[in-house]
């Protein structure tokens, strides 16, 4: 199968699927290796974007998906009377970011970081398909743990989580120095106790 035919095959399969398709499945049917599928998909995606076509090709992890191009979102919404994707509130963004950067997370963890109840917002994000449950934590109570979805990657315009913007290190100098102080105190105390213990023997 030449490159052109492979690109068209990918296009046909992704169009028909609608949803994300693992590149490996296309590779095995086309009789090529997965990397060739990724290369052809990249070339197809570049072509769509360079030629300002109405569709775009999105890669999330090892899956490929066709979507309508964001440039024409307005027309798509008008013609198809679609609901405009709701904007994320600051609260939703914060919860989503905690899930994204510290995943997998429990609801309790999110609440611990934010300091307020976040169950409603977690529910909203679940409903919108931006996060999903991915098992339970093996501790008492067996709380559900959550991770972000393929839709989250697509919505952020990234291929995988490593492409998320780097989280700034906000570790306050305060906590480091506080900790160092404690360590010193413990060391001193330990030595003191050992000394006392020794003398008692």
């Amino acid at each position: 199968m030449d490159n052109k035919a492979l690109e068209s095959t990918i296009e046909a399969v992704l169009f028909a699927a609608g949803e994300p398709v693992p590149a490996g499945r296309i590779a095995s049917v086309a009789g090529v290796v997965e990397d060739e599928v990724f290369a052809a998909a990249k070339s197809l995606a570049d072509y769509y974007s360079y030629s300002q076509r109405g569709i775009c090709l999105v890669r999330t992890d090892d899956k490929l998906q066709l979507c309508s191009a964001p440039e024409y979102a307005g027309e798509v919404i008008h013609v198809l009377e679609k609901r405009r994707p709701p904007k994320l509130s600051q609260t939703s963004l914060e919860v989503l970011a905690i899930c994204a950067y510290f995943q997998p997370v429990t609801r309790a963890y999110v609440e611990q970081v934010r300091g307020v109840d976040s169950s409603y917002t977690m529910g909203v994000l679940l409903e919108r398909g931006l996060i999903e449950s991915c098992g339970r934590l093996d501790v008492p109570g067996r709380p559900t743990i959550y991770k972000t979805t393929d839709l989250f990657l697509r919505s952020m315009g990234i291929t995988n989580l490593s492409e998320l913007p780097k989280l700034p290190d906000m570790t306050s100098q305060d906590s480091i120095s506080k900790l160092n102080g404690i360590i010193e105190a413990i060391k001193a105390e330990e030595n003191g106790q050992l000394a006392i213990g020794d003398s008692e023997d």
Partner: protein
Amino acid sequence: MDNPTFHLEGIVKTRDEMQDFSGPLSLILMLLSKNKIEIRDLKISEILDQYLAYIEQMQEMDLDVASEFVQMASHLLYIKTRTLLVGDEVEELDELMTSLEQLKCHDAYSSIKAITPELLTAYSRGSMTFSKPPEPLNPIIDKSYRYSHEPRELLLALSSVFSRSGGVQEPTKLVPMPKRIIYGVREKCLQLVELLRSCEGRTLKELYLMSKSRSEVVATFISVLELCSSGSIAITESGGELSVSLVNDGDIRLSDMITE
């Protein structure tokens, strides 16, 4: 003290469970196993020194460890100190732990809040892509075989057939086995129609004489019968000879229907 025992009830139940840990707790265990002593006898300053050395190494490798450092150290202090303290002191320790946890969460939350504008920008573009519903799959599914086998599997299958039948009889004694592929009636019909179309008015005898083998004669005989019964050819007698001719210029639609 070759086999260290870990007094970490509530944290580690079995040694198998340890395999699942990564990060701070696994580090504690690693350090504990290096010292090969019980945590009760652990000299915390030694552990801390080791840990700080580890942190330094991680930082040299440019790994992001700052928040992990806080978590790790608090766990260490907690485990060790609980074994040393009593009464009010335990409470104090718990307060200390809580305050450290809070600090850690506060730091994480500050980072998260700092990153949200960037995420919002990415989202406002990325969320404007629409997916589509899947197309219904064409119900005509190609059922042709798509797996590969080793020829040896055929021999194995034969072996199991023959072992089951308790030996091998000469099958040809009961059912005649064809020695070679013989003429299909359908092919022969088409061949005859082609022949008659190119040259009208063959005699039946000529058609039989053209056959090269007994089986082909049989095929010709059956084909002529088939074609007659379907009305594609007609046989007429003239001067003692039977002539064969096409009807309707060899409309072979009927003979097409002669299938297996």
